[in-house]
């Protein structure tokens, strides 16, 4: 039971001692990515080995003689592609292992946990160099981890570990040493801007809510990270749920709210589970509920699960969904700060925004302003995916260039491919090209080029990606997810999708491009909500930077990237063809003819491009000509 400041400080002190008492900590990454590659089994195996080894103590007891080893499930350690990831930490020395299999566990335990050896073959390697500690790995060394500081270091399911890492010191400071107005002021002065995409100053929002005459107020967290290709917020919720909750508690204190809601996407079951666990633990210890730490401040946390509607990432749709309604945006004003959840003043920020708050309170606004750019202080998390060497979760100061992110941190294109474009900001964002690689990323700078930082999904594309197809892909997503309330978005996205489909199917006409641009501009200016307004951005930005590709699809019926199946021509290479006739047998439409033991021939007019011939050929004799 923690019911006053003293008790909290004592609990933190004890938690710190307990952590310091470990001779060795085995940190098993338990982010969604590593769980998918089997890290739960690795965790179980280490628990079993540690439990079976004489002289090893897993549960801490003071004055115990044995060697104290902790096996912990941490948040995302970053390099998801090389999972399952395991770190062996002894004091301030940590070794990072990658692609750990169950059969490796005993060896790691014997050599690295008990012994002082390193299992060389499991180390992270890049361009022939092996790296021991995670801090040395270029992918991690070039990052600035504030929001993600605890991910990979502490148990994501333990309040005590969060305390040991300095958790809740910011909340304490706010609650006991600052007035609510001072907290709002600190956030305002820090220049923290909403990380959900819009970049609206968080402090201004808080200030507006704090001065509403209505006293019943709400703090809502948008964890409906719907952008395909983005998983930063999910990683924070599952990797450091306490930090998010602490941020929301500080917001609750600052604006005088007693209730916080987190709206989590349905596709993140692990985030829901970890948040529920954290809330339960905090409630059990009186850190959530009535009269927290013996003060007047009461705060209750609630979790709402999304139900598969992308539009619920929009503020007014999200609050409608919490209220039990269809998640449709409404006309603004009144804005959420005046009439949000249940028509009461509401602070609505996303996960990353709240997760930034504790550090700002603790270290002050000036410290925060020293990171990032003048207009957008602080860091930004990005999920780095697509055709890139190191995929994963990163955090860098605002103002970092795409070149640094893609080439220094991401290690360049996968398999030495050629960079073509990077899609930023998800379906509401745009594509940037080679010429934009040196633009410092912040909310203002890239708007000029028709893209947005958005929530932070970065999908890198190489020259095997067809930009027209990418535009069609995003449009089919937004068209499907359009809630249907306003005409420009409902009809506009549908018509744009039809045009794009016509082009990728090889039936495009040149005037389609003008129509497409006209529609896109119209939807952008007329749609009701932010999602509708930004839906045409992928089309507009590909039209701006890759118009030649559109034209090629229309006039030459050619797809350079060999992606658009309607434009692919399947050909049999006479050098490899043995004339076995298997392809002719496999062809569902009888497009392949020939004589046994001689080279067969595909009739392009009959071919439906199903690839059955190619898949079945034992001699790799069939290739795509474009």
């Amino acid at each position, binding site marked *: 039971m923690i019911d006053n400041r003293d008790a909290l400080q004592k609990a933190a002190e004890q938690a710190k001692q307990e952590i310091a008492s470990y001779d060795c900590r085995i940190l098993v990454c338990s982010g969604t990515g590593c769980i998918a590659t089997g890290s739960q089994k690795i965790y179980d195996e280490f628990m079993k080995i540690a439990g079976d080894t004489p002289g090893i103590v897993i549960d801490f007891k003071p004055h115990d003689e044995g060697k104290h080893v902790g096996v912990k499930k941490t948040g995302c350690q970053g390099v998801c592609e090389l999972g399952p990831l395991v770190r062996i930490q002894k004091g301030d020395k940590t070794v990072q292992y990658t692609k750990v299999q169950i059969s490796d566990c005993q060896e790691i335990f014997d050599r690295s946990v008990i012994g002082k050896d390193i299992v060389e073959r499991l180390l992270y390697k890049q361009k022939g160099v092996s790296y021991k500690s995670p801090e040395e790995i270029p992918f991690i060394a070039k990052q600035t981890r504030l929001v993600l500081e605890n991910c990979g270091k502490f148990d994501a399911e333990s309040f005590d570990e969060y305390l040991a890492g300095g958790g809740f010191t910011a909340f304490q400071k706010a609650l006991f040493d600052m007035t609510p107005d001072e907290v709002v002021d600190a956030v305002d002065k820090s220049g923290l801007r909403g990380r959900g995409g819009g970049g609206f100053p968080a402090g201004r929002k808080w200030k507006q809510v704090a001065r509403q005459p209505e006293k019943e107020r709400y703090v809502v967290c948008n964890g409906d*990270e719907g952008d*395909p290709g983005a*998983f930063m917020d999910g990683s924070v919720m599952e990797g450091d749920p306490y930090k998010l909750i602490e941020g929301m508690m500080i917001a609750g204190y600052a604006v005088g709210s007693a209730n916080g809601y987190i709206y989590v996407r349905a596709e993140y079951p692990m985030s829901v589970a970890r948040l529920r666990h954290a809330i339960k633990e905090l409630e059990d210890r009186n850190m959530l509920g009535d009269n927290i730490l013996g003060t007047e401040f009461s705060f209750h946390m609630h979790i*709402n699960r999304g139900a*598969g509607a992308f539009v619920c990432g929009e503020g007014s749709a999200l609050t409608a969904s919490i209220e*039990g309604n269809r*998640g449709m945006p409404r006309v603004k004003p009144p804005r959420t700060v005046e009439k949000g959840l249940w028509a009461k003043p509401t602070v609505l920020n996303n996960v990353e925004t709240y997760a930034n708050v504790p550090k700002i309170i603790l270290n002050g606004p000036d410290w925060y302003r020293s990171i990032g750019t003048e207009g957008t202080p602080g860091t930004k998390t990005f*999920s780095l995916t*697509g055709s890139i060497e190191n995929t994963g979760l990163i955090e860098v100061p605002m103002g970092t260039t795409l070149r640094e992110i893609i080439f220094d941190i991401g290690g360049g294109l996968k398999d030495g491919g050629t960079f073509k474009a990077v899609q930023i900001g998800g379906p509401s964002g745009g594509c940037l090209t080679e010429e934009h690689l040196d633009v410092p990323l912040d909310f203002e700078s890239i708007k000029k080029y028709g893209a947005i930082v958005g929530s932070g*999904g970065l999908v890198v594309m190489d020259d095997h990606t067809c930009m027209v197809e990418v535009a069609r892909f995003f449009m089919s997503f937004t068209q499907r997810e359009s809630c249907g309330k306003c005409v420009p978005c409902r009809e506009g996205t549908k018509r744009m999708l039809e045009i794009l489909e016509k082009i990728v199917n090889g039936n495009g006409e040149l005037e389609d491009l003008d129509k497409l641009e006209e529609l896109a501009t119209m939807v952008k200016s007329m749609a009701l909500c932010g999602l509708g307004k930004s839906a045409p951005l992928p089309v507009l930005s590909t039209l701006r930077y890759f118009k030649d590709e559109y034209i090629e699809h229309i006039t030459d019926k050619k797809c350079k990237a060999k992606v658009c199946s309607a434009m692919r021509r399947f050909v049999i290479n006479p050098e490899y063809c043995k004339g076995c006739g298997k392809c002719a047998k496999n062809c569902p439409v009888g497009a392949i003819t020939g004589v046994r033991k001689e080279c067969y021939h595909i009739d392009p007019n009959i071919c439906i491009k199903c690839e059955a011939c190619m898949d079945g050929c034992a001699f790799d004799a069939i290739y795509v000509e474009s």
Partner: protein
Amino acid sequence: MLDQTFYQKADEIIAFYGKKPASLIPIMQDIQGVYRYLPGELLTYVAAQIGITEAKAYSVATFYENFSFEPKGKYIIKVCDGTACHVRKSAPILEAFQKELGLSAKKHTTDDMMFTVETVSCLGACGLAPTVMVNEDVHPKMTPEKVLELISELRGENK
């Protein structure tokens, strides 16, 4: 007519979330969690219990993609077609599932009620694209060959 146990289960779930309009979505989620679909009669019952009209309950249920009035299979397979998975070729993964299980864009569930195949916009494991989620487990770096392995593994669990 639904079996009486359905109503008992619904009552338990309603009691947990409270008889108020705002409980509609979590109640429907839990009912679907138990039965793998949302029986229409039960939704009518829930609406009356929490004090909203039947029309309202249906309007909400049909708005969200996750709710289904059709029974789903024991294994709900969600093939991710998010951007990262899409550029790393998720389309052949979906095709492989559909082909192997005799399903299509129109028919999502096998006749033996074992498998339902759908797409999802992002599972948040983009670093391991292309991915597939079976119930709540994410399977990384899928290939059409691994699809066949996965199906036979799941079928094996039920022998």
